[in-house]
């Protein structure tokens, strides 16, 4: 997710569209990214740790973004 203090112009554009739709209860929108990383077989602790590391080092830029969560999904969810 973009850091809380950072301007998110994309989110602001969507928030503007919401208010034009009459959705007046929403006061703000922020837009982040979701990465689905697929592997064969089971996810063990080492692999999960590797993904957490990648999330911080490559998938996101810590100057402007925070990693919100890293979760294991089952195949049925990601298919």
């Amino acid at each position, binding site marked *: 997710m973009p850091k809380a203090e950072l301007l998110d112009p994309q989110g602001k554009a969507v928030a503007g569209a919401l208010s034009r739709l009459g959705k007046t209860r929403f006061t703000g929108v922020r837009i982040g990214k979701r990465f689905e990383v697929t592997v064969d077989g089971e996810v063990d602790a080492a692999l999960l740790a590797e993904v957490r590391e990648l999330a911080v080092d490559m998938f996101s830029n810590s*100057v402007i973004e925070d990693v919100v969560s890293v979760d294991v999904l089952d195949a049925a969810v990601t298919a």
Partner: protein
Amino acid sequence: MRIGVITFPGSLDDRDAIRAVAIAGATPVALWHGEHDLQGVDAIILPGGFSYGDYLRAGAIASHAPIMAEVISAADRGVPVLGICNGFQMLAEARLVPGAHTRNAHQQFIRRDQRMRVENVRTDWTNQFTAGQEITIPLKNADGRFVADADTLARIEDNGQVVFRYIGVNPNGSLNDIAGVANERGNVVGLMPHPEHATEPGFGPDTELAMASGVDGLPFFESVIASFAAAV
């Protein structure tokens, strides 16, 4: 002096950078992102463009290219490195300069002849400017908004690492009107506007004297040549 210009998939301004190097009087060397060989160049330019279509984040995927490992170690040795636009984004992603870039505050791609002030003339890429000199060179970007946290901003302002500041118009919402920054040592400089597009009369920004006559980009390349001459 031999100056390398690295081409990445999606680089657009590598040819113009090569041309600018030659106009300034150095020998340009075309380098390829997928290799580990800097061919012994004396300085390196990361050109503008849209490497990898700005996927992930602008400059992020290119910052992990094989040749970037060599660029990072060369920068650590003091080899001058200039990142222009997408090259600036790569430098930030590689943590060779402070800060990061986000989408322009107004959400639009912007292209204009941009005025800016040279705030630091002690870097390898700005020593041929006079302190506070105002120059005009082309700017064209979508993700040009320079951001950094408050502590980093204060630190780079104190250290003189803010090398260029937009004047007149802040075209993308960059914090403190920052157009370009350097590392602490001053050998690595990144900026969003394009000096290589203002090095040849007839192809630069308009000036009061004549259309397309602006060559305010030339001193960037003359500076690194002067740095090299002083070091040899």
